[in-house]
Every structure is written in structure tokens, then in C-alpha cells.
């Protein structure tokens, strides 16, 4: 039996399944956070493996908590977009308050666990990441400026720095370079998607670049950011903290990003333009996974064999 006040308290029995709570955490974003935070962690001097695993878990859960708080706040606009209408809150499987409580609880525990397991500067940086994503990006920038994902992208770019800080208690040039890669990668990645979903964003009143600047200007921006991204992606190898395998992958990937951006820039109308933009969106995900994947594998090989790169 459940105690329900149907008149005004809204204490209806929850119909949410554990899977709905998992969806709130944005698992696909979390998988990228695991990889990028691990890269930051492995760039640092070695830590006790148990501390490393717990730190990684805390950072990942912190990122998931940001996702839950984002879905709580954005439920009104998620309802209006086909891409997000099936999320647990707009679909009616989970109440907004449940998502808020879940997000706050996970934020609290992820920061505390990282502080206890690793150090408090890293925990502070994780808390700042959650604050930045939820307050600065979700509540402020997302609905107010087409630069939303440019400035807000910093939140998604911070995990490697948090990972590095978890091992050392500080930041370094290498962790800042990894931050820069994700930061510059975010706009062409999201704008490629936004080109195809501009009707969705328009319906929800979100000022994404294609809706405000127009598709042509957005295509130019994608090209410019991709031209900057390619050399920045090479930086870990040029600066000597990544090996030749990373150098080759980042070179080929950078060429692919620029080539994709040129195709997006040139093909502007019709179904073909849409397919090319979605293709560029997909390739950008592959690019980032490949860069950080190779970086992680290289570091693991280095640690396992003791061979200097």
C-alpha cells in the first residue's frame, strides 16, 4: 500500500525502474568520461591501483550526477524535442523531484569519495565541474546564447584534469592540453548534430548556432574549429607525452575531421547535406574515442613494460 495524497502533494507511487535512473546518468557520456579521466590519471605519476579505480569511479559518477541534474532542469524542453522526449522525466516514468534528489545525492557522494580516496583539490575540481555543467551551462548558457556549447564545453573537458589532479593534487601542461582537445572538439561535434536537429531546438526555443547564426555560418564555424582542432589534437605527441601510435592516429583523425568539416561546408542543401552532417557528428565521436583510447593503451603499455616512449 502507498500513502498518497492525490489532491496537492503529488506523492504518487513511483513507477521508475533502476534502468530509468541509469538513463538519467547519460551512460554514453559517462563512457567518454571514464576514458578521458583515465587518460588524465595515467599521465600522472602512478597511484595505488585501488585509489585509481575508486577515483575513476567517483569522477564518472560525478559526471552522471551532472547528467541527472541536467535532465531534471531541462525536463520542460526535453519534452518538446523528439531526440529527448523519451527520457525518463518527459516520458512520465520518473518524477522531477526523484531525479533532483538522485543527482544531488550522487554529486555529494562522488565529491566526498574522491576527496577521501584521492585528495581535496581533485574533489574541489570535480565539484566545480558539476557546478559548471549544471548551473553555468544548463541553467544559464544553454537557453541564452548560441555560444552555449562553446563555453559550456569546458565542463565536458575537465575530467582529464580531475583525473590528473586525483593522482597529483595539482594540474599540469599535459592535463591542460587534454582539456583543450575536448574543449575545441565540442563545438564542431555538437554543431554537426544541431544542423540536423535545428527544428527540434527551434521548437524548444534553444538558441543553437544553426537557429541563430543560420546553417551557413554554423558550417563555417565547424570548419574553423576543426582546423584548430587538428593541430591541438597532435599536441600530446609534439610535446612528448604521447607516443608514435598516438601521433599517427591523431594525424589521421585530424585530417579526417578537417575533411569531414569541408564536406559539411560544401554540401549545404538536401538530404545529402543532412547525411554528411550526421556522418561528421559520428566521426567526431570516433575521433575523440580513438585519441584518448590510444593514449590510454600507450600509457598502460608504458607502465607494464617500463619502456619510455
Amino acid at each position, binding site marked *: *500500500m*502507498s500513502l*498518497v*495524497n492525490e489532491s496537492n502533494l503529488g506523492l504518487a*507511487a513511483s513507477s521508475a525502474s*533502476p534502468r530509468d535512473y541509469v538513463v538519467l546518468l547519460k551512460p554514453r557520456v559517462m563512457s567518454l568520461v571514464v576514458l578521458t579521466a583515465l587518460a588524465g590519471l595515467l599521465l600522472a605519476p602512478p597511484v595505488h591501483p*585501488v585509489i585509481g579505480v575508486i577515483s575513476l*569511479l567517483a569522477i564518472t559518477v560525478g559526471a552522471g550526477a551532472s547528467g541527472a541534474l541536467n535532465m531534471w532542469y531541462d525536463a520542460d524542453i526535453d519534452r518538446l524535442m523528439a531526440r529527448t522526449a523519451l527520457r525518463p522525466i518527459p516520458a512520465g516514468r520518473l518524477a522531477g523531484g526523484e531525479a533532483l534528489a538522485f543527482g544531488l545525492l550522487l554529486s555529494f557522494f562522488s565529491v566526498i*569519495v574522491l576527496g577521501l*580516496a584521492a585528495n581535496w583539490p581533485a574533489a574541489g575540481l570535480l565539484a566545480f565541474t558539476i557546478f559548471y555543467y549544471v548551473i553555468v551551462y544548463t541553467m544559464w548558457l544553454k537557453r541564452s546564447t548560441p555560444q552555449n556549447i562553446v563555453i559550456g564545453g569546458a565542463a565536458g573537458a575537465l575530467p582529464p584534469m580531475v583525473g590528473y589532479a586525483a593522482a597529483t593534487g595539482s594540474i599540469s601542461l599535459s592535463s591542460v592540453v587534454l582539456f583543450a582537445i575536448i574543449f575545441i572538439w565540442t563545438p564542431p561535434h555538437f554543431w554537426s548534430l544541431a544542423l540536423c536537429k535545428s527544428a527540434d531546438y527551434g521548437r524548444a526555443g534553444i538558441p543553437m548556432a544553426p537557429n541563430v547564426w543560420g546553417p551557413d555560418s554554423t558550417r563555417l564555424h565547424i570548419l574553423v574549429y576543426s582546423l584548430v582542432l587538428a593541430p591541438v589534437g597532435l599536441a600530446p605527441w609534439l610535446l612528448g607525452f604521447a607516443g608514435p601510435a598516438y601521433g599517427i592516429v591523431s594525424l589521421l583523425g585530424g585530417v579526417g575531421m578537417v575533411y569531414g568539416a569541408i564536406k559539411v561546408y560544401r554540401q549545404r542543401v538536401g538530404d545529402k547535406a543532412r547525411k554528411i552532417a550526421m556522418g561528421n557528428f559520428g566521426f567526431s565521436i570516433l575521433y575523440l574515442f580513438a585519441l584518448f583510447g590510444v593514449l590510454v593503451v600507450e600509457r598502460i603499455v608504458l607502465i607494464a613494460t617500463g619502456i619510455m616512449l
Partner: protein
Amino acid sequence: MPTHFVLKPLTPEQEKRRRQRNIAIGFAVAVLVVIFYAITIVKLGPNVFVRPD
């Protein structure tokens, strides 16, 4: 404003999901216990063998 509480039976589906949520919460708490235990042991390190005479 007066409030009126009514006891409303859960549907079998709601009961099933509540049970699943409870299991998930139990699992999460168990993971937290393991995490805090592991942190304690690692932080103590070799000192864990130090015993007062």
C-alpha cells in the same frame, strides 16, 4: 487547506519496480561500504600491522 490522504494499493508492476529499486539501493550501499573499507586499508598501508604492545 485540508489534506486528505488515501491509501492506494500499488499495482503489481509498481511493486515489482519498487523491489528492483530497493535491490539497487542495497547494492549501491554495499558498494559504498566496500569503497570506504578499501580506502581505509590503502590509506593505513603497512601501519595496519602496527599493534600497541
